[in-house]
């Protein structure tokens, strides 16, 4: 438990478990939500596009946080689960003309089912072996998609999707899609925050810390391990559904192992074992990426001898280097630093707890 502000104490567990303790925190929280709602009026379209991208990835990485950070099951197939969501969502939208408020949850369900299937081996294996089954999911997924009948998932070509509609609004611009994405993201993150402090979340943490001990204490390993995969993959599936409506095109090559690795990198940078950490990691890595995208043309101008591709290839060096440096120097991620900073602020001017 984080340190509470001065003078705040509780006599119930419910009070202790609350995320928001004081009136000032409520005010800040509501202000934050209001700013989120009015962001398109403050920022330019370019920035909104960045926020959209980050918010969609955020949903997938929060899901990964539940599977990997809370339940301790290494998952390198998040991108495939996201793809499953995108294809299920796209297929329902194209073939049956269903509205987005059915297809996106259906995408989530599709992701969850695929995740549960590849999560079943988790009962018997862990660590590296489990990472391998999820890599297998990542390799097998595009093969399945491409070899289903063409009218199901678009085969090798992919699916083109009409923009989403709701009550006369067409979600075809970055600004309108912003509301669709950000509201979904807020709902999913709200759900995640509450999931991890409930019975299910505690079972996940028990499994992460020691699964044999957890089983002895009465946690049903098979159920909870499969559930951890299913929930994590459901988040990926919902993110995939949004992705389908955002890009309005779904192809199997958008969901490769490479992206799964990126999501894992974001998780490590943010810190395993906290929802806020996942969000921080996404924002940090996306910010670095946008910075490179922005700086690369400028750098090309100053160093014309060096090809433009090199600056973009630098992204890989940056991400790989960031993952390695964080693992060596701060394996608990940005969230841990944030908490240290917050505690230091609260107990100031005393140096120790």
């Amino acid at each position, binding site marked *: 438990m984080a340190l509470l502000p001065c003078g705040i104490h509780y006599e119930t567990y419910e009070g202790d478990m609350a995320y928001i303790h004081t009136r000032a925190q409520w005010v800040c929280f509501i202000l934050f939500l209001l700013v989120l709602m009015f962001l398109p009026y403050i920022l330019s379209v370019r920035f909104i596009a960045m926020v959209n991208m980050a918010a969609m990835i955020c949903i997938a990485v929060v899901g990964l946080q539940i599977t990997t950070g809370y339940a301790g099951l290494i998952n390198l197939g998040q991108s495939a689960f996201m793809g499953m969501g995108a294809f299920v969502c796209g297929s329902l939208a194209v073939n049956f003309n269903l509205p987005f408020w059915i297809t996106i949850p259906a995408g989530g369900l599709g992701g969850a089912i695929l995740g549960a299937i590849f999560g079943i*081996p988790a009962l018997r294996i862990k660590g590296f072996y489990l990472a391998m089954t999820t890599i297998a999911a990542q390799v097998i997924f595009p093969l399945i998609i491409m070899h289903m009948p063409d009218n199901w998932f678009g085969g090798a070509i992919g699916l083109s999707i009409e923009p989403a509609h709701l009550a006369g609004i067409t979600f075809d611009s970055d600004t309108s899609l912003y509301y669709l994405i950000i509201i979904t993201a807020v709902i999913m993150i709200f759900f995640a925050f509450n999931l991890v402090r409930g019975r299910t979340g505690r079972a996940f943490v028990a499994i992460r810390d020691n699964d*044999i001990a957890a089983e002895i204490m009465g946690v049903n390993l098979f159920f909870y391990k499969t559930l951890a995969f299913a929930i994590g993959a459901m988040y990926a599936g919902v993110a995939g559904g949004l992705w389908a409506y955002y890009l309005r095109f779904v192809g199997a090559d958008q969901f490769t192992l490479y992206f799964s690795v990126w999501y894992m990198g974001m998780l490590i940078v943010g810190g395993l074992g906290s929802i806020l950490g996942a969000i921080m990691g996404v924002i940090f890595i996306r910010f670095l990426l946008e910075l490179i995208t922005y700086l690369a043309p400028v750098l090309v101008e100053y160093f014309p001898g060096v090809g433009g591709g090199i600056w973009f290839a*630098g992204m890989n060096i940056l991400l*790989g280097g960031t993952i*390695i440096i964080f693992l060596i120097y701060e394996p608990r991620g940005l969230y841990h630093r944030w908490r240290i900073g917050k505690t230091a602020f609260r107990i100031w001017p005393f140096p120790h707890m």
Partner: protein
Amino acid sequence: MEWEYFFIDLAQYTLEGVLKGLLYAVVAIAFIVVYRSGRILNLAQGEILVFMAYVIWTFFSLTVFPFWIALLLSFGAAVLLGLIIERFIFRPLIGQPIWAIIMVSIGLMILIQGIVQVGWGGIERPFPQIFPEAPVRIGELIFTSSIFWGGIIALAIVAGLTFVFNRTRWGLKLTAVAEEHQVAQAMGISVKKSIAVAWIIGCALSTFAAIVFLNGQTLTFAAAVIGLHALPVVLLAGLESISGAVVAGIIVGVGESWAAAYLDPYTEGAMSQAFPYVLMLIVLLFRPQGLFGWKIIERV
């Protein structure tokens, strides 16, 4: 008559599969040796292979070095790479949980990818012809020379490494480190040294695998996929068994080749690509330690 043709085809497919399997085995052995001497899971195997392939290309394309010197320099570079990776990435992580090792190898994977793109521009390069171009003929059978000689050298390496790891004091020290870092350290074995040795052998084997795999072909970064293809072989063999990798490699190679011949016509080429991974999933479900791996009993 028909059956005769069937058997000739079958023999042909099987032979192709065996040779391909040996190739997988070479990459898998590099992976297993790194694990067996330092408990390090190296998902960046394919990327290291490609990196070394570009280094080899550089030494050979400089043309100032004679053939053998260039080859020797390449292996020297492999040793250096192994030492650098150990010193700067894996030494600080001694004693960390296994997921940290997996994650850092993923970070390494992306880092090397970036370095290759920046260093060599990710452009196609002709890989030098190190094994002779002319195929090897034994009676009626024809083999690609790189795979034939590569296979023979690989078998020799496997025999040598199996002996070293199971029979010599030095190999047993490495094995102890693979089992448990802390216990090994407590017994007076230098974990640092073991991990350095693991990486040196691993990088040298990757260099060898690059030569066998890419001999006389076009080199692009896409070749790193071989690292992923070798994973089913590693898991089928079990993470700890060096000689098992050859058996597992041949099983996967032959299975893939049969799937390509008999199942692909019905599945538009999907089956041969999916086969190694489906096999891997089945192995993981029913025998997680693989065919020859150690069965580890867990205690709370």
